């Protein structure tokens, strides 16, 4: 469903270009819950931002649902973001002036018009993620966990092909983190959503079907979950130790 091939991206500081992604290739299947892990500066967020078309990339190919993203106009990219992608950010990125319910409806409002079916879907999502009781509240009036669950609900509003989540539990306590991960699992299990999550948190990553370890702009290792979650987390931690050079 998502194919990334030889992705190359660098940032410029003055006249010097610093490569962040050095030819990353990966694929994500429909309904798969994938995590990307790696130390700071490994290129996790940049990879996500490139897939989201938030930042332009120099070389490589990204194909989403059979459509290649490079070369598309800003208008076409906006359409893809709106219809095929859902986003969850570390700092929630909710619009402060809108209520929880309105925030969830934003993708539909951007698309054109909110129909009765859309409102029903919104109610379903609010219920699914346990945030119905705060639907008339504003972001400033709710907790971090509630904000992130609102963001997850928003990301699913347009039934996207792929949900991209950048450190969704980064700003949350353990209880809220768990609630957000549960939201993703719900989305995957009940709606067959495909989720691509960047995280630092091995606990959150251990719920995924697959974890991609990124180091210095390259894929270091990919781990598939074959065992129970806690055992997968142990394996994951070992791999991270290995990547950081602590285990030989």
């Amino acid at each position, binding site marked *: 469903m998502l194919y990334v091939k030889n992705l190359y991206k660098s940032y410029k500081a003055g006249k010097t270009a610093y490569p962040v992604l050095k030819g990353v290739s990966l694929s994500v299947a429909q309904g798969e819950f994938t995590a990307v892990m790696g130390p700071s500066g490994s290129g996790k967020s940049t990879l996500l931002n490139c897939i989201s078309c938030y930042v332009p990339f120099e070389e490589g190919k990204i194909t989403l649902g059979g459509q290649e993203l490079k070369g598309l106009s800003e208008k076409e990219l906006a359409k893809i973001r709106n219809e095929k992608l859902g986003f969850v950010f570390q700092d929630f990125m909710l619009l402060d*002036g*809108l209520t929880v319910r309105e925030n969830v409806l934003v993708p539909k409002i951007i698309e054109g018009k909110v129909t009765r079916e859309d409102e029903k879907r919104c109610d379903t999502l609010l219920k699914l993620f346990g945030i119905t009781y705060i639907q008339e509240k504003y972001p400033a009036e709710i907790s971090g966990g509630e904000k992130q669950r609102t963001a997850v609900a928003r990301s699913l509003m347009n039934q996207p092909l792929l949900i991209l989540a950048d450190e969704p539990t980064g700003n949350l306590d353990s209880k809220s983190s768990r609630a957000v991960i549960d939201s993703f699992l719900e989305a995957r299990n009940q709606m067959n959503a495909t989720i691509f999550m960047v995280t630092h948190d091995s606990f959150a990553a251990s719920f995924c079907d697959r974890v991609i370890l990124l180091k210095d702009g390259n894929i270091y290792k990919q781990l598939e979950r074959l065992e129970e979650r806690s055992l997968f987390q142990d394996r994951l931690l070992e791999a991270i130790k290995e990547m950081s050079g602590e285990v030989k």
Partner: protein
Amino acid sequence: MKKMAELERKLQKNDRHQAVLYLFCNFTALMLVTAYSAMMQSVTVQTVFPEGGDSRKQMYMVFGLTLFGCVVFTLYASSLFFRKKSRQLGILMALGASAEKLAPGLFREVLFLSCVSGAAGTAAGVPFVYLLWNLFRILIVDSEEMKLTLDWEFVWIPALLLIFTVLCVCLMAYGYLKRTDIISTVQEEHKNELAKNWGRWCGPVGIVLTAAGAVLGYFSPQIYMKTAKAYPPDWLNGIYFIALAGLYLVMLHTVVHGWRFGKKNRYKNLIARSMMKFQGRQTVNNLLVISVLIAGGVFALFYIPALGSSVFLTAENLEYDYSGAWRTDQQMLTEEEIRKKAETYGILLKDWKEEEYVSLGMGSRVETERNGKLYLEYREFASEGRFISETAFASITGNSVQVEPGTYCAAADQEEGSTLYLVQSADKLTNMTTMEQMKVSFAGYVYCNTLSHRDTKAVYVRHDQDYKRTPQGAEEQWRGKMLFFNVEGEDSYAFAKDFFYSCVDCFGPECEIPYYYDRVKKYDAERKGEIYWGDTEAMTPVSYDRPDSTDFRTYWAYMPKSRILDKNDTLPTYAVFFMMFIFASMVCFASALVIGYTRCRTVAVLNRYVFEDLKRLGASPGFLCREVRNQCGKVFQIPFLTGSSVMFLFFILIFYANDGKYTSSEFLALFLCILILAVLGGILYGIYQKTLNTVLRELKVGKVTEIRKAK
């Protein structure tokens, strides 16, 4: 809420604080520019300010500074608005809103805000002018000339600024919509704008450049005239931009390094300095604009003591309470009539002196302009001068002088402050009736404040024998008399006015001319078949119908001098000048204060999260208050110190450069300037305290007084 338009409306409502700040900034900028341009272009000011005169140039210069400040200010306000707006735009883009989808709402919003605030500001500018000017008339001074009449052609200035601000804000909106890096758009608000991290050299170099720019800017026209033998072109004023570059470096040093020397307590201002550094680019720009505006305001304000002290001390230093001159062909009041008039006011006259003079043509080298080039050439009929004898001079001053035969001396004031316009190179004098010519040479100055060339024809002294020969055969229009007298005890202003008006009534239309109307030059022009420029519209006319007007009092060729009249009427005579410059300075200071206030509010808006973090780290309200004060203080303190000291030093330079020395009136003016700066400093401190409290309240730190009490 189902549609994009509804969503945008709701978001706009939520962002109203930001919109209000933008509206306030744009409104204020447009209002101040409208007010200044309305006043500057008004019939009131244009009639009184002499065309091509220094005062008019200064008024335009201060306007230039105000316009520069307001333009930068509106751009700053727009960028601030978009910094806050960018997160919202970024989120909507991230969620799939295309530029086409966002454009109508965004353009509608910015067009509405900029047009409404700009139009309201422009509209408010006119009542603001009426209000302020009439307040001046009620509270400070009123005269016939102070009646405010606007020339509505000024409207094109604020209209252009309005179009400019609307265009800028639309271009900014377009720029945001065209961005492809959504993450950078979302994070725009928290983006650091580091100032150039140049070394500690930038402060001292900045000071040197500022001084060099001011000195070179001032002297370059003179140097140009001497070397290129032509009037300096306007672009030469661009040299002052060196001073602006210098000021920029000074501000950069202030933000990046600070001015504390030594390494004691190097961590004391670390946080405040870092915060300023990380928003350095805008901070430096803001400090520079505020400095320039304060310099402009101070420059306008200094005009008042500079002119006022000169007029006041000139009157104070006159040897006689009253003096006057008239042509013999005019029916001047007799001594008896003047004495009788004085008696009706209970005044007795004393020290009565009446002396003859003759107006002669003077041949000398003069600077003339042809095809833009300056030539120093000899003219047989270069100018007109009033000549008196040694004996007359001794009688008037009580001091005898020796003027060698065949020479002449020029009457100067005691401090030689008005010698620039005295003819010091005449080699030939001509009796303008008989055309008899006499060879002469300049023999220096003789001193008498009453006779010195101050707003009247220059007076020269000749050897008695030489003098006796000169008026022979001269027509009455080339001969005249001078009178001088004092009063016993206290003088009467009412008598002075009566005396002045009576004098005016004595003169015929042939004397309705300013002192720079030169009959000898007219003769010279006409004999060459040319039209004398004094007979064209270029000459500022004086009219007997308006004896209290600035032009008449300042320029009439036969204006009698009266100590009490000059002193009492200084304010009403120069009311339009004084009030216009007060007005200009108020506009400059208002612009500077609004920018300063907005900058301080920005400190609160942009650094809120830093202060929250500091609170979490256990920072006390006293500590937080100090950090805020360290930033806000600099916004007011540094531009005030820089702007005012630059202008003060510039005035010291101007005063010296005028005649190569300082006169008592210039010392008095400088002293008054210091007093003005002290008062301004006090007012600014009060406003700074108010602003500081607003910022502390916004950051939920508390009030300064409460924090001090808690300590």
